[in-house]
């Protein structure tokens, strides 16, 4: 304390004469406002789901085409081919070149993108609602008439090789690839990013053949959400996309194997100042009767900021900026994933704390207060997370892809409200048991290796 100081001390700042005040209570959370979803399957097999959500004068468009490889194992050439296919889809048709496509979309405030992963080909974007006919017209044009010219394939191949180099320089990409291999071996689901070598070998003929084979309507699903009249929108889709045809139905991805418990694999990345810890175990499908209990148990563990794991490794230890656990759904089920990036010198310590928190889920069950907090978060944040056209469209599309409808979503708050502490305790003990996990650690193995190996359960790649 000095006489010249003009500000209060930290201690003085932290208290007032009146003292602590009581926290106001909460009112009753509103129901999730979900619009009616109108669904219709066209004669060519394309299913359209349309819902009116005015809010802003836009329409959100999400098309999913099942686009699995016919091969039972990962095929680098096909992964590369479909990636080039996606990149060249919007570069020209018989009637529009790259600029013409973009000009027509821009005129109605539209953005359209095409992406591909081992399971789906996605085409989608948003536009001013009044521009829906234009967006559907452009979409139909590229689905049925993209030309994938030699020159565009050549240019996009070059760019892809460069972009892949940039992507693989990202530690999270390295970790993701290693994790997917650890989980699923050589099942096609692991092929998320092609290799530069395979991309360089893709020919225009191959891209055009893959288009004919993959971009088919039978089994494709189109979701439209926005300031639209659902029936009129579906009629517009039928008019624009009714003539789209294909030789066979779209191909669904087979269920990958269930990840087997085991050691963590240590992957060396030279010059890393952080390590990526990625742990994984079998998850719980949405239709499993334990799903709501699992969801709450996951929040308690690491699924939100106020979780045990986050409070330990960030707010207590300062090892990380963020730790997160959550599920990914895969054909036939789900996988639980834990991810945290930590400083190199605390890698072993962070793994120890992670295992400790997993063990604690078994040995020290979630308290009633932990369950209530997670339950309220799950119910309330559903309201927040669906409060936009794009979020609603994305959620409807993801649920529809696994055969669930808006009714399932509407009923979710009730299912979360009814879960008991005992059910959460059982789910926590069963699903977070440390012995169920495997995974990878990416980082500077020269520095992190000795301590990790001494800790045990870690092997070098």
């Amino acid at each position: 304390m000095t006489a010249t100081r003009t500000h209060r001390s930290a201690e003085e700042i932290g208290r007032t004469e009146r003292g602590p005040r009581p926290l106001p209570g909460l009112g009753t959370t509103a129901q999730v406002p979900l619009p009616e979803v109108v669904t219709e399957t066209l004669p060519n097999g394309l299913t359209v789901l349309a819902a009116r959500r005015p809010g802003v004068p836009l329409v959100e468009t999400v098309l999913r085409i099942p686009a699995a490889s016919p091969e039972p194992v990962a095929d680098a050439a096909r992964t590369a081919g479909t990636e080039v296919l996606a990149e060249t889809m919007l570069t020209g048709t018989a009637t529009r070149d790259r600029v013409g496509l973009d000009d027509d979309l821009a005129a109605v405030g539209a953005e359209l993108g095409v992406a591909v992963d081992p399971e789906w080909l996605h085409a989608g974007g948003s536009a001013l609602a009044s521009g829906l006919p234009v967006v559907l017209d452009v979409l139909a044009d590229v689905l049925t008439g993209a030309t994938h010219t030699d020159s565009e394939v050549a240019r996009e191949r070059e760019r892809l090789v460069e972009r892949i180099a940039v992507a693989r320089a990202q530690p999270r990409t390295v970790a993701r690839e290693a994790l997917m291999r650890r989980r699923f071996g050589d099942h096609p689901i692991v092929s998320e990013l092609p290799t530069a070598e395979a991309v360089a070998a893709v020919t225009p003929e191959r891209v055009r053949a893959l288009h004919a084979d993959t971009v088919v309507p039978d089994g494709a699903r189109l979701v439209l959400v926005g300031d639209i009249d659902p029936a009129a929108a579906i009629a517009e889709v039928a008019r624009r996309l009714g003539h789209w045809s294909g030789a066979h139905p779209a191909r669904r991805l087979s269920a990958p194997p269930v990840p087997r418990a085991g050691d963590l694999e240590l992957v060396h990345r030279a010059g890393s100042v952080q390590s990526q810890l990625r742990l994984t175990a079998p998850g719980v499908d949405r239709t499993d009767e334990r799903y709501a209990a699992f969801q709450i148990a996951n929040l308690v563990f690491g699924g939100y900021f106020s979780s045990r794991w986050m409070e330990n490794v960030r707010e207590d230890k300062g090892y990380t900026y963020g730790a997160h656990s959550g599920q990914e759904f895969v054909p036939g089920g789900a996988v639980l994933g834990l991810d945290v990036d930590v400083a190199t010198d605390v890698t072993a310590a962070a793994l120890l704390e992670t295992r400790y928190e997993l063990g604690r889920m078994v040995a020290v069950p979630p308290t009633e207060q932990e369950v209530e907090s997670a339950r309220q978060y799950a119910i309330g944040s559903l309201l927040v997370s669906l409060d936009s056209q794009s979020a609603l469209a994305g959620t409807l599309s993801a649920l529809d892809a696994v055969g669930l409808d808006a009714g399932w979503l509407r009923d979710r708050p009730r299912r979360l409200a009814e879960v008991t502490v005992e059910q959460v305790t059982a789910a926590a003990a069963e699903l977070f048991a440390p012995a169920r996990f495997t995974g990878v650690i990416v980082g500077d193995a020269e520095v992190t290796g000795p301590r990790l190996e001494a800790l045990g359960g870690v092997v070098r790649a």
Partner: protein
Amino acid sequence: MSVIDEKSALALHRATLSNGLRVLVVPDPATPVVGVSVHVDVGFRSEPEGRTGFAHLFEHLMFQGSESLAKLEHFRQVQAAGGIFNGSTHQDYTDYFEVLPGAALDRALFLEADRLRAPTLTQENLLNQVDVVKEEIRLNVHNRPYGGFPWILLPPVLYDTFPNAHNGYGDFSELEQASLDDAAAFFDTFYAPGNALVTVHGDLGTHGVDGTLALVERHFGDIPARDVPQRPSFAEPAPGAERRRSVTDAHAPLPALALGYRVPDPAADPDGYLAHAMLASVLTDGEAARLQRRLVHTDGLVTDVSAANGLMGAPFDSRDPDTFTITAVHPAEIGPDRVTAAVDEELDRLAEQGPDQAELDRQSARWAAALHREDDRVMYRMLGLGARELLYGRAELTLELPARLAALTTTDVAAAAARLRSAGRAVLTVEPASGAEPEGSAA
């Protein structure tokens, strides 16, 4: 096609409490969620020399408890109310926000008021959050390719003064030297109620506007008034010539470059400033944009290119001086001078001939749709309203943006291009650590 926003009918209600705290209430009955934000008029341009990164570090400390809430309770109470939260530090402001089901409005105001009144600042939390911030910097800068490009790397090339040029994330050694007394001084100086703005946006439930203002008064009204700091000008002369700097990136597989330019004062000349935002779109937004066509597709000089008005990626996010950037990643065999020469040619062409009207109409329609899409979430619209109210006293700017962009003429955009060509600029090149030496780089 009309691109004018029907939503601009949203009513803005303003008040100022007796302690100087400004309040903005913007009801939106179309949503079941409500957002509460506190914008404080201090960003990283105001942090003291020798304490780089302090404004951001302090933002972290504001989540560590307050008189009525133990450490971790702020997070827990927001989340147990079904809400999400965050904070962010910008050049000229720091924001704190939560978005929750409408039923939690009273609680949200309580939580924000408690920490603005009496945050718990402890040595233990300070040390812990220095570690967390260092991990954030390792994650976003040190351990990834192109980390901090261009927002950390470009300003020291374009600007000379400490406020404008320094690294807002901070140097590790200076973060480690930050003391608890630094934090106390920072809070008492900058977090005075008269230096902050509370915004409430969304579902006000049965409270209505008047009831919400009464709630704000109940929670924030007894925070004692303190002196509000005199805000210095951050103005400095624009560079008269081109300035170059090259940096090495240990993780980058390909070279990259960033061009930085000064733009008109967003407060004094908002339309001149916005013409630069439209110019950025004409250059790089969409496959048909000028630099996409020229650099990416026709000449094959770059892998990807983008342009933006505003260092943090959005227009009207800081006071003067603000920065226009063009960034590109390119193959090793292409020298940066070939890229800058092609950019200059396209800017010259735009300066002489302007874009055509149809080109502008298309970009306006895209802007309108993109802004609608952003505003479709309470969080983004609230943060936009609050930032513009704090920086310019005009939350309306957020609602007017689509119409103002649509009203720009080809002459306005040509003038923006000419302005960039007639002044000095910064050229930053990023070289892979193990890559070949590209031509034309200067150290």
